[in-house]
């Protein structure tokens, strides 16, 4: 994101000249108070909102422009389809790989189905593949959302308030998972209120205050108290 400004209404600026880079293979923790602009920032990064000025672009390692296929988005409410099964939700990640016709008739090639099954198994959802998502726990639903992103082939996962609705133990489990995935080259941008997560799980940290990035640096050496002072 380069020099991004955003306002929902004229005169009500939410973000001011935001510059931010999210890279694959690392976890960026984005912190800020409620209303600081974290969700707006992530929605802009997902290109679900259009900035008033500035640019949002996806680039590969050589700096060439890429489409949004490599970016997955997990909203605050997790964004899974409750009435579909775990496997069906995971397969939704593959929709972008299908033609218009096969999308609509829902004809997923066998290799994609096999890949989705494998992803579910790796994420610990193997026993729930045929279960409706509404029957799962919060932590399992987060895993389903991650599975969809992986089937999509995402290199970056934008996760809004990723673990805020989970109990502390489940939060840790899900965040441990991001560590594993990071080692496979997947990058995460995670917004959170919880400063204690930064030293343990973040590679980089960004603090947003009243719509401005006031800190963007490596997380190593940062303490929870140090981050808290900046929020």
């Amino acid at each position: 994101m380069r020099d991004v400004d955003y306002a929902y209404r004229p005169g009500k600026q939410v973000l001011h000249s935001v510059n931010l880079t999210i890279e694959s293979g690392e976890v960026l923790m984005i912190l800020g108070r409620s209303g600081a602009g974290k969700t707006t920032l992530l929605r802009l990064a997902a290109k679900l909102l259009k900035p008033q000025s500035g640019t949002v672009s996806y680039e590969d390692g050589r700096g060439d422009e890429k489409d949004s296929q490599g970016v997955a988005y997990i909203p605050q409410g997790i964004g899974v389809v409750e009435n579909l099964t775990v496997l069906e939700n995971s397969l939704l990640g593959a929709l972008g790989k299908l033609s218009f016709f096969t999308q609509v008739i829902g004809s997923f090639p066998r290799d994609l189905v096999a890949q989705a099954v494998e992803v579910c198994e790796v994420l610990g959802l193997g026993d729930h593949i045929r279960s409706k998502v509404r029957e799962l726990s919060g932590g399992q639903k987060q895993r389903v959302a991650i599975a969809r992103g992986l089937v999509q082939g995402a290199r970056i996962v934008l996760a809004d308030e990723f673990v805020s609705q989970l109990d502390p133990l489940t939060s840790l489990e899900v965040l441990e998972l991001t560590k594993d995935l990071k080692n496979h080259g997947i990058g995460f941008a995670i917004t959170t209120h919880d400063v204690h997560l930064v030293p343990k799980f973040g590679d980089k940290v960004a603090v947003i205050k009243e719509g401005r990035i006031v800190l963007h640096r490596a997380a190593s050496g940062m303490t929870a108290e140090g981050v808290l002072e900046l929020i």
Partner: protein
Amino acid sequence: MRTSWQLGPNTNFLMLLSATILLLWYFDAFNPRTLAKLPNLGAFISNALPPNPAPIPVLLLSMVETVMIALAGTVIAVLIAVPLATLSTRSLFSTPVTTFFRLLLSVIRTVPSILWALLFVITVGFGPLAGVLGTAMYSLGYLGKLLYEAFDVVNKEVLDAVRMTGAGKLALMRYVVIPESANYIISQSIFMFEYNVRASTILGLVGAGGIGFYILSYVQVLDYRSLTTTLLVVLVFVVAFDFISSKLRSRFLPS
């Protein structure tokens, strides 16, 4: 600050009652000549009782035809209402598109079912087919509206998340909107069917099949005892379908 409900229910009720009396007076209800006709009701009832059991077999067959008309009409309406409601969904399509299809559904809704049935009697001739098509058109207007209102409130976060996978609008409809609204679609379709069973009983008045034909015939030949039997048959079916419908719908509605 006093609000209207703080005036007390008695005041509101008295105002409503006064307005109703005023309307009845306006419609000539207190005219002595009108009041003099009231004993006709007693005469009608005495002529209509006891019910004549002779036409029961034919009435049952005719009521089954009425239910079939309602069923076929509802199914056709659901099949057309889902795509039209999709095109009326604001979270998927632009304002000009949704406005056009909402207006279309509104126009369809404006025409009463009996008029649709009449239109199809003219188009395809007398018989149950006209009833099916008339029921379908009328139901389409209502179901379309009920469905697009349900589609509009599907969680936009889910739509955003799936949109990011590269899903097109129809795929979003198929994999997000319809699954998330499935219970509502089923519940409203059952309700529409139940409503259509009741509504289809009068389609025969315009020659569009079903038991309405017998209602009209018995009125025309002043056979009020058979008319009573007809109405009782309708009552039994309608009550049965109300019961079945409410049981089925409760399975698909949140508790």
